[in-house]
């Protein structure tokens, strides 16, 4: 749960992912979208790190860059002590078995022309870890693990509800016995009545297989239920990272405070009583981020110094990191 008794599974150091922008007849590079612009953090074995932020803040790109699905512009990603950025070819392929991803939209991420058996068995085949009858056996076992009937293996994705489809996605991610799974908004496409079912499944599997999750989401309420620590991202950078209870009880960054105060409460009486800071304006373009602190253009307490230098992401209390000039 905290830094002193846990092994670091994943260490991300100053990771940057800039996508070039080309213009004109000669397709010269005229700029870059700084989707991820220098993030540094550790993930401990067996924990769930929640990653929240508005759409377009770079949280999905961060997840994909960590898994080396994009080639990072700079920075390091150490997984079990191995620097992934330097790995190539066969070595990288072998490493990939340990790191998997669960995708956002179970309606779009499963090939409609493959049966469930083929979908869940595909990673086994691609990585040559099983063949023939062995695959069928493993698939049946995996479907059982995610509480689906093994007989479903011959069906197609369209025959399933959203929650069941997401469980197929989970079975697929589990096929290679990974130790680390990035869950990219796994429940945001599901009805609220079944979200908790998928979250509970993820929690059970975590215990059963000692999994480590990076849980990307924009729903702060659900993140609170699954995460041990929570990181808040804004425009390509981390602005705050702390233990869950600490972050929700004592948010230090003004952006985190605004996010928390915007979360709706399904209770009109309690809702009327609380004070809310509603931020105006939109997230600036990551192709042309503001100088200094990224958040200063919308920050209710911005000072002149915020435009001058970029605030360092520093540990202000044990385990509580924040990037703001105005926090002591």
């Amino acid at each position, binding site marked *: 749960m905290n830094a002193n008794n846990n092994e670091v599974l994943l260490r991300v150091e100053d990771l940057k992912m800039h996508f070039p922008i080309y213009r004109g007849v000669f397709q010269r590079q005229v700029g870059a979208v700084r989707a991820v612009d220098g993030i540094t953090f550790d993930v401990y074995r067996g924990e769930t790190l929640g990653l929240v932020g*508005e*759409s377009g803040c770079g949280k999905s790109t961060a997840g994909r860059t960590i898994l080396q699905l994009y080639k990072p512009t700079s920075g390091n990603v150490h997984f079990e002590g191995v620097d992934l950025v330097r790995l190539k070819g066969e070595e990288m392929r072998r490493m990939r078995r340990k790191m998997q991803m669960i995708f956002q939209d179970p309606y779009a991420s499963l090939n409609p022309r493959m049966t469930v058996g083929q979908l869940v068995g595909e990673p086994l085949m691609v990585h040559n870890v099983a063949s023939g009858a062995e695959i069928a056996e493993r698939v049946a076992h995996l479907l059982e693990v995610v509480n689906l009937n093994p007989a479903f293996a011959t069906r197609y994705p369209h025959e399933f*509800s*959203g929650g069941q489809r997401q469980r197929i996605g989970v079975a697929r991610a589990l096929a290679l016995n990974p130790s680390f799974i990035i869950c990219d908004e796994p429940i945001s496409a599901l*009805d*609220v*009545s*079944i*979200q*908790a*079912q998928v*979250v*509970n499944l993820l929690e059970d599997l975590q215990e059963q297989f000692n999994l480590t999750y990076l849980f990307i989401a*924009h*729903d*702060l*309420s*659900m993140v*609170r*239920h699954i995460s041990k620590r929570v990181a808040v991202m804004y425009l390509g950078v981390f602005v705050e990272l702390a233990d869950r209870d600490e972050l*929700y009880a004592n948010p230090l960054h003004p952006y985190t405070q*605004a*996010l*928390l105060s*915007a*979360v*709706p*409460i*399904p*209770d*009109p*009486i309690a*809702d009327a009583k609380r004070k*809310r800071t*509603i*931020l*105006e304006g*939109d*997230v600036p373009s990551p192709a042309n981020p503001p100088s200094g602190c990224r958040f200063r253009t919308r920050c209710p307490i911005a000072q002149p110094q915020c435009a001058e230098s970029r605030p360092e992401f520093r540990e202000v209390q044990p385990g509580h990191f924040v990037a703001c000039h105005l926090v002591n």
Partner: protein
Amino acid sequence: MSKHEKLLQIKNLTLHFRTQKGDVQAVDGVDFELDYNRAVVILGESGCGKSSLAKAILRLLPRNVSKYSGSIIFEGNDVMQLSDEEYRQNVRWVAMSLVPQAAMNALNPVIRVGDQVAEPAVVHLGLSKTEALQPALKMFRHVGVPDDFIDRYPFELSGGMRQRVAIAMALVTSPGLIILDEPTSALDVLTQANIFNVLKRIKQELGTSFILITHDIATSSELADDVAVMYAGQIVEVSDARRFFIEPLHPYSQKLMASVPRLRQEHDPDFITGQPPSLLNPPKGCRFAARCPKRFEKCSEEPPVIEQDGRKVKCWLYA
């Protein structure tokens, strides 16, 4: 305009679609009422027929309708009796308008947003294109879009701004009722909060009524005066929002409310096992019975609508 008691009364509204597998009973005998300057939220899971209900009220029907009946009484007139042309001229967008689902992606990418907002005023109020820009500009101010955005194209606007433009388009003819189908589900929490503030302000300043169709229970509580819960094509509970959010009556509403993750609560959110029934051939009796923790023998018969302290619930438990 003479004031009628209710702005809108819907009685036994039914909308069935013909498909290859049989009739889909998307809306099946819906009753509810809406007062002037009130907002009713229609809550339900995906596939429960809530978007079809919006289409049924606005008579925006596809070709494969097999049954469309009931009455929709708007300010004392049963608009179901009007011909399609009369309906188009006198009701749609004049009396009530729609902010469709994913409205921010429904804008025409090659037309300036100002012209798009003005279009309903041209079509339904008979204004010229230049005249119609006046009400368009007024509505831009109401929804909080800067004046100079009127000449921009949709791609130049953020998601939240495009959603505001879609709301302005529904407002431009000054209808008494606006139906919003999932107005904020594709937006971030901060933008959601902003849009709901806009809606609250419009309700206050213009006296408009809203039907808000959503699955997002937590956000809907910000605007709701009344709540109607829809399940498998039927309304199972109608209540004022205050009492509903504290103590829902129908077992489905109770389970649904318990599924909502809250920011400050220690226990984990609940979930509902199983799936909603197919609307092709819904079960006899209570449609929620198969998933209901409180079911008993009676539930195999069609439950009556029970009235209790001004709230309505379709459940045998209260009979």
